[in-house]
């Protein structure tokens, strides 16, 4: 692509933001270490695969970092369209298979389009606002297109059905719309309405759904049933104490008390062995990544880059925050992995692609701070 040809390779490699790459790879390797322990001190079945994936995705991330932001701007709609088609394809394949399917089997890899849509949505919304004058942002003409672009994939993902992912899509899209300067009332009023209607919604739920909410609020109601996950997760985190029980010493994960110790509850597995210290260091690492993301956004040269950087940072944040709140009993168990730590390719891929795009924006603006790259559309 265009950016690749612009400079000489050694210069480009040196220009790379290596501390951030190291941070991302470091979190991934720590994930591998935790997975090694979760398997009872064994590279298989998770740790080695995780590390291999990390390697492949790191290469992919570095490759993306070389793509110029302008290319993303140009290709935003085709990418979005392609992934939307993939989502429809998943829907059709799932319909034929007679069950809910969320991925496309593409020979070597399983592609989960809804994950990639998180990125594509950010790109396409960034492009829409990039060309949309501020004066139109709060007019109906400036509202319907972003709304449609968000609701289309959300609807498709809801059909799968995958409530968790569709909520993060809505969150990511809304964050970008907010950053683009849409009136704050468009957010406060719906949020207020939602909060106000919670009691009514609660009453509209089925009895078993109400029970699930109750158990989320008080997991000890059903310690062996629906509350089991969260209870065991809290036990794992709590029994780690300040400094943890030591590497390979976590009984909760090794004795199978902790459900999904390698995917959704990998943080609890880690916290049991590394304690509060390990947990805070890991949260700080994610915090650093997010802070860097905002820094990239604030220093970016044009609106598209700013919006994309902010949107991607929000997307990464949603992953991390929802997972952490879930394992600590602050959010219901929705089944979102902790990116870079959890076993499983999709989340890792999404986040590393996001970091790759952030790196590319960062690269361009570090080379020429505060100089617009996109000269089009500032009409």
């Amino acid at each position: 692509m265009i950016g690749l040809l612009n400079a000489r390779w050694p210069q480009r490699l040196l220009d790379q933001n290596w501390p951030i790459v190291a941070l991302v790879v470091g979190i991934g390797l720590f994930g591998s270490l935790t997975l090694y322990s979760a398997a009872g001190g064994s590279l298989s079945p998770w740790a080695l695969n995780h590390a291999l994936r990390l390697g492949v995705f790191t290469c992919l991330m570095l490759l993306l970092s070389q793509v110029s932001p302008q290319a993303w701007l140009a290709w935003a709609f085709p990418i979005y369209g392609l992934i939307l088609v993939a989502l429809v394809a998943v829907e059709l394949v799932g319909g034929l298979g007679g069950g809910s399917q969320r991925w496309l089997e593409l020979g070597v890899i399983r592609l989960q389009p809804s994950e990639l849509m998180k990125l594509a949505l950010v790109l396409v919304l960034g492009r829409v606002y990039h060309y949309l004058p501020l004066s139109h942002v709060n007019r109906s003409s400036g509202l319907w297109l972003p709304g449609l672009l968000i609701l289309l994939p959300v609807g498709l993902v809801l059909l799968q059905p995958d409530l968790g992912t569709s909520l993060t899509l809505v969150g990511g899209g809304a964050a970008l719309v907010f950053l683009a300067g849409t009136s704050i009332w468009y957010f406060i009023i719906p949020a207020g309405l939602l909060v106000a209607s919670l009691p009514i919604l609660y009453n509209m739920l089925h009895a078993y759904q109400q029970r699930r909410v109750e158990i989320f609020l008080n997991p000890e109601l059903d310690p062996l049933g629906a509350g089991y996950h969260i209870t065991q997760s809290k036990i794992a985190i709590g029994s780690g104490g300040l400094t943890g029980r030591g590497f390979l010493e976590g009984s909760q994960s090794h004795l199978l008390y902790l459900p999904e110790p390698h995917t959704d509850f990998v943080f609890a597995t880690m916290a049991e062995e590394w304690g509060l210290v390990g947990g805070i260091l890991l949260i700080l690492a994610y915090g650093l990544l997010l802070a860097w993301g905002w820094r990239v956004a604030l220093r970016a040269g044009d609106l598209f880059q700013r919006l994309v950087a902010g949107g991607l940072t929000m997307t990464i944040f949603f992953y991390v925050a929802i997972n952490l709140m879930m394992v600590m009993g602050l959010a219901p168990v929705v089944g979102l992995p902790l990116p870079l730590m959890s076993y499983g390719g999709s989340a890792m891929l999404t986040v590393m692609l996001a970091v790759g795009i952030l790196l590319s924006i960062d690269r361009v603006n570090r080379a020429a701070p505060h100089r617009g790259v996109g000269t089009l559309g500032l009409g």
Partner: protein
Amino acid sequence: MNRSNLRQMIFSRRAVLLGGLQAAVGGLVVGRMAWIALAEGDRLRDAAEDNRVALRLIPPRRGILADATGLPLALNRPAYGVELTPSLAGDMGEVLERIGRIIPLAADQKEEILKEAQALRGSATLMVADDIGWEAYAALNVELADVPGVLPVKTYVRSYPGGEGFAHALGYVGRPTREQYLESRNPLYMFPGFRLGKDGVERALDDRLQGQPGARRVEVNARGRILRDLETRPDVAGESIQLTLDYGLQDFMARRIGGDSASVVVIDCTTGHVKCLLSMPAFDPNIFSNRIPSDLWKALQADDRKPLIAKATQGLYVPGSTFKMVTAMAALAEGVATPGDRVTCGGRYTVGGNTWHCHSRRGHGTLALQRAIAASCNVYFYTMGRRAGPEAVARMARHLGVGEKFDLPIPSLKAGIVPDPAWKEKRFGQEWQVGDTLNTAIGQGYLFVSPIQLAVMTARIASGRIVQPSLLVKGEAPAFPPLGIAEDVLDVVRAGMSDVVNGPGGTARRASLSIPGVRMAGKTGTAQVRRITAAERRRGVRRNESLPWRLRDHALFVGFAPADAPRYAVAVVVEHGASGSRAAAPLAKAAMTYIYDRPQAEEALRKEEAARERRRLAAEAAARRAAEAAALAAAAPATADAGAAPGAAGAP
């Protein structure tokens, strides 16, 4: 550019806002984690430990029961079983289905297990199958390793080598009932392999046999699988107890009884040791100790030979003539008669217009005590009974152990009834009649005794001492106090009893032992189970053998051997055996023969069993022939008639 700057400002402001929100969420998450790890850390660490470490009881091995010679009567056989924890198992139906692929589980068994699982509290465990063999155990370990809650275990199964013959004396073991658990609150009672004594010695001596449970602290995973032992306190096995029973004798007698409904008690007169306490038919305690199949249970309940009743200790029978020694000894002890006093028997005894019969219609002529016992003359004992009076007879009966509940490790011993005027007044509100005195004198009327009481009575007569029966071997043999009856009186009674078996005209001559130097003394008895009406008596009493089994008289025999130096006393009751001499006395003979000449007894039993087999085959063949004949007759009745006529016509 102005617009652009405005937009950048908006973006920056909002980015800072969102970044701040993210930081706030980060702070919240860190705070939450610190709260969980630090403030709740201790509690949650305990919870993790609770998860990881399970305290498992080790049920104590039950004490072994041995016979007098040290042979095992009840022991613990190592076995393999499979336990199931329903709270871990999830879908019980599917889990049972998977277990059922390795060990066969009948539909009603599954149903029972499901019912049991529902009654279980919390995370309690139940035993799916108890004795599955090593191969099934190994297969379960391999194939159900991934099924949570299923745990193949090594256990012990109570085993009774003597089987049926010892079912009533030893009892059996079984799982504690819900009521027993609620009463004791003993967690051991919830342990799947744990068994309580349910009957007999097992129940009476349960406290001593149980032992102390041990405990294991084990590391378990979430599927209930034990990963390793952390600490073990071994169990203390229950006390091993030696009983006075003689395995060989009791087992032999069980086989000798065959299909009859009978009980045999043998007591060592010098020590009081019960050598044989047998009630047949019975059930297999090995089966009872696991789940009792319901159809077996129903069959046992319906059986008119009452296999579920321990007849030797719980069966109450009218003693009949076996009681006559008591009447004579009462008169002698009261001083109203001497052994030489003669009574003339004309076949009947009349009091105030009513007539009582002797079993000899022609009468026994004039006889004294010794011959009265040998001939079992009713008139003699009517006379003695009236001389002594009902109170004295009852007193002597109790003195000899009749009506007594002995101190034996057997639950539900029966006292029976020793009637006297006070008892009748209390029981029926009626005055004691002369007829009652006469009936009691010959062991009929209200008297009800158990076989063990008869055996003790005989042992006391034989030894002249107040023998107390015992089932437990204790240090030294107790010295029993003398009965307080003159030795010459007892000698005459014993001589009469010896004549019953060995003398001319004795009623049980067929029971005389063919062992040189050992003779048995005894007394037969017959107890009516139906009332003989006056009309029947006029027509002549029907022979018992012609009656249906249920209406035949009970056959009794009490005896001791050797006659001149009594060592063993025996009491035999054959329900509906019809004749004491024919049905009961041979069993006593078999017991004594076994004691004094085992090869001879075994040989006799072999012959007896061969004869039984022949009879069984003959009966089967006869039944078959009868069935065939009936079929034939149904097929061609006409031809048979036609063929008969010409022959009659052609006669010269």
